[in-house]
C-alpha cells in the first residue's frame, strides 16, 4: 500500500481514531496536493526534455574543441620529437630542426607582457570596483569594454606606432607591450567582477577597525578576491599566448635564437603562420607540431589557473 493511500478502516491507529478531525489535512490542503499531483507527470516529462536539451547544448559546445584536439593530435603528434624542443630552425631546404627559438620567444614575450599588463589591469579593476561611482571609474569601465572588443591587430599598430617607429626597429619589447595592451582591459574587467563579489560587510569590518579605504582595498578586498582574479588573469594570459596579429609588426619573428628584448624575436604563433603558408612539406609538418605545443601550453596555463583557484578555495574554507 502506498504511503498516503486510503487506509482501511481497521488499520487506523489509535492516534487517528482519537484525534482524527484535527490532524488530517484540511480539504484545501488535500486539494492543493491533488492539484500538484495532477501536474507532476507532465512536469517530469518537461523536466526530462529540458535537461536533455541542456545536456545536448553542453555536448555541442565542446565539439569544436574535441575536433581541434583530435586533428592536431593526428597531424602534429608524429612530428613532435626532442629536436623540436631543443633545436632552432634549419635553413630552408634542410630537413629537421625545431622551434626552440619560438617556444623561448613566446615565453619571453608573454612573460614580459603579463608582467606589464597584470599589475595595471588589477590596479585599474580594483579602482573601478572600489570607486565605482566616480567619473574616472565610469570612463575607464567603458573604455575597457571598447578595448576588449578591439581587433587584436589594432593593438599591434599601437605598439608599432609608439615603439617600433620611434626606435627604428622591431623588438620583443614592442611585442610584449602589444600583448600587455590586450591583457589590461581583460584583467581590468575580471578583477572588477571579482572585487564586486566581495561582501560589503567585510569592507565595513576593516574600515571600522580604522583601516583606510586604500588599505582595506589592498589587504582585505584584494585578498578575498585573489582566487578569482588569479583565474581571470591566467585565462587572459592563455588567450594572449595564442595571438598572432599583435606580434606581426612588433616582435616580427626570427629564424634564429634570440634572448634580447631589443631585437626581433620568434614566437610560436608567428612561426606556425610562417611555416603553414610556406611551400615546404617539412615546414607544414612542423607547423602542426607547433600548433599542438601551443594548445598544450594554453591548456597547461588553464590547468594551473584551476589548481590555483582550487587550493585557495580549500584554504579559505578551513
Amino acid at each position, binding site marked *: 500500500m502506498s504511503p498516503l493511500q486510503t487506509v482501511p478502516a481497521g488499520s487506523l491507529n489509535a492516534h487517528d481514531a482519537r484525534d482524527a478531525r484535527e490532524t488530517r489535512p484540511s480539504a484545501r490542503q488535500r486539494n492543493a496536493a491533488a492539484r500538484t499531483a495532477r501536474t*507532476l507527470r507532465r512536469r517530469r516529462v518537461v523536466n526530462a526534455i529540458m535537461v536533455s536539451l541542456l545536456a545536448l547544448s553542453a555536448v555541442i559546445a565542446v565539439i569544436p574543441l574535441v575536433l581541434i584536439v583530435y586533428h592536431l593530435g593526428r597531424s602534429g603528434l608524429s612530428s613532435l620529437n626532442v629536436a623540436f624542443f631543443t633545436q632552432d630552425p634549419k635553413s630552408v631546404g634542410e630537413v629537421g630542426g625545431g622551434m626552440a627559438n619560438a617556444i623561448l620567444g613566446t615565453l619571453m614575450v608573454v612573460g614580459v607582457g603579463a608582467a606589464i599588463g597584470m599589475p595595471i589591469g588589477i590596479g585599474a579593476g580594483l579602482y573601478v570596483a572600489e570607486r565605482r561611482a566616480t567619473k574616472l571609474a565610469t570612463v575607464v569601465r567603458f573604455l575597457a569594454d571598447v578595448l576588449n572588443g578591439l581587433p587584436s591587430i589594432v593593438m599591434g599598430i599601437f605598439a608599432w606606432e609608439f615603439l617600433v617607429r620611434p626606435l627604428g626597429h622591431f623588438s620583443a619589447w614592442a611585442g610584449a607591450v602589444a600583448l600587455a595592451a590586450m591583457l589590461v582591459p581583460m584583467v581590468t574587467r575580471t578583477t572588477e567582477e571579482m572585487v564586486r563579489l566581495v561582501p560589503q560587510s567585510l569592507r565595513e569590518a576593516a574600515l571600522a577597525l580604522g583601516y583606510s579605504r586604500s588599505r582595506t582595498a589592498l589587504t582585505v578586498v584584494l585578498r578575498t578576491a585573489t582566487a578569482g582574479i588569479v583565474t581571470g588573469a591566467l585565462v587572459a594570459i592563455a588567450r594572449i599566448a595564442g595571438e598572432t596579429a599583435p606580434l606581426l609588426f612588433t616582435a616580427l619573428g626570427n629564424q634564429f635564437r634570440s634572448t634580447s628584448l631589443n631585437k626581433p624575436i620568434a614566437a610560436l604563433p608567428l612561426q606556425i603562420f610562417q611555416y603553414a603558408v610556406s611551400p615546404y612539406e617539412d615546414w607544414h609538418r612542423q607547423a602542426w607540431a607547433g600548433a599542438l605545443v601551443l594548445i598544450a601550453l594554453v591548456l597547461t596555463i588553464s590547468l594551473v589557473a584551476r589548481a590555483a583557484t582550487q587550493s585557495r578555495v580549500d584554504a579559505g574554507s578551513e
Partner: protein
Amino acid sequence: MSGVSLTEQVVREPIPERPTGVGVPGTPGLIDASAFSFWYGKKQALYEITMGIQARSITAFIGPSGCGKSTFLRSINRLNELIPGTRHEGKIFLDDADIYARGTDVVALRQRTGMVFQRWNCFPKSIYENVAFGPRINGETDRAKLDEVVEGALRRAALWDEVKDRLRESAIGLSGGQQQRLCIARALANDPEVLLMDEPCSALDPIATQRIEELLVELKRELTIVIVTHNMQQAARVSDRTAFFFMGRLIEIGNTAELFTSPREAQTEAYITGRFG
C-alpha cells in the same frame, strides 16, 4: 488519511512501522524520524535522530550553533540534497509516506512542506507575483482562483491590509518584517501541511518578531509548524513542544513547559540556564 499519494505509485506493502515520538510515548506525529543520520561528505552532522512531531502544533528546535537543528529541518523537505556529497541513513515519515523512499517526488514533497528562511528571500517581482509563484507552478491556472489564493495567503500571513493597494509593486520595497511575512504568505499560498521555519525572526526587530509569533499561534490551527530558533524565550513563548539538539544528537524532546522548567537531561538544563552554548 489523505487520499493523495506522495509518490503516485500504488505499492502494495504494509504501512511502515512508525516510531513513536520521544518524550510522549505512544503519540504519533505527523512527521516521524526514525534513527535518521546525516553526513556532509565525511562529516557526520546528525546522529540517529528519532522523534515525532505532532500535527497541528508548534515544535521548536533549540541548541547551539552547528548542533544540527537546521540540518534536520532541511532534511524534512530534502533541501539538503542540493549540497553535493551529502548522504543519510534512517527514515523520515511525513504522514505515512517515507519521504526518502525511491520514487518519492521531491516536488510534491516540497509543495506539502513550505519553508521560511532566516533571511527573507522575496523574488524581485511584484508582491502579487511572489505569492502566486507556488500555486502557479503547481497547476493553478484560473485567474480568479489565483487572485483568491493570493488574497487568502496574504490575509493568513496578516499582511493583506498593509499591501492590498500595492499588490503590483515590487516586493523589495517592503520593510524587513513585511518581507518576511510575504515569504510566509508565499509558503502558505501552496497550502502546505507543514511549515518549516529556519530562524525566521533572527533578523527582525521585536515588534516584527511579535507579529510573526502571533501569526504562528494562529497558523497552527491549520498546519504543523517546526521552527528553529536561537531565542529560547521565543521557543518558550510560541511552541508546544521543544527539542534540544547538541552536537548532532537529539538530547531531549518534550512539552515546552516541562522541558524549560524540569529538563530531564543535565545538558539541556545547562543550555537553557545559559551555562554553555
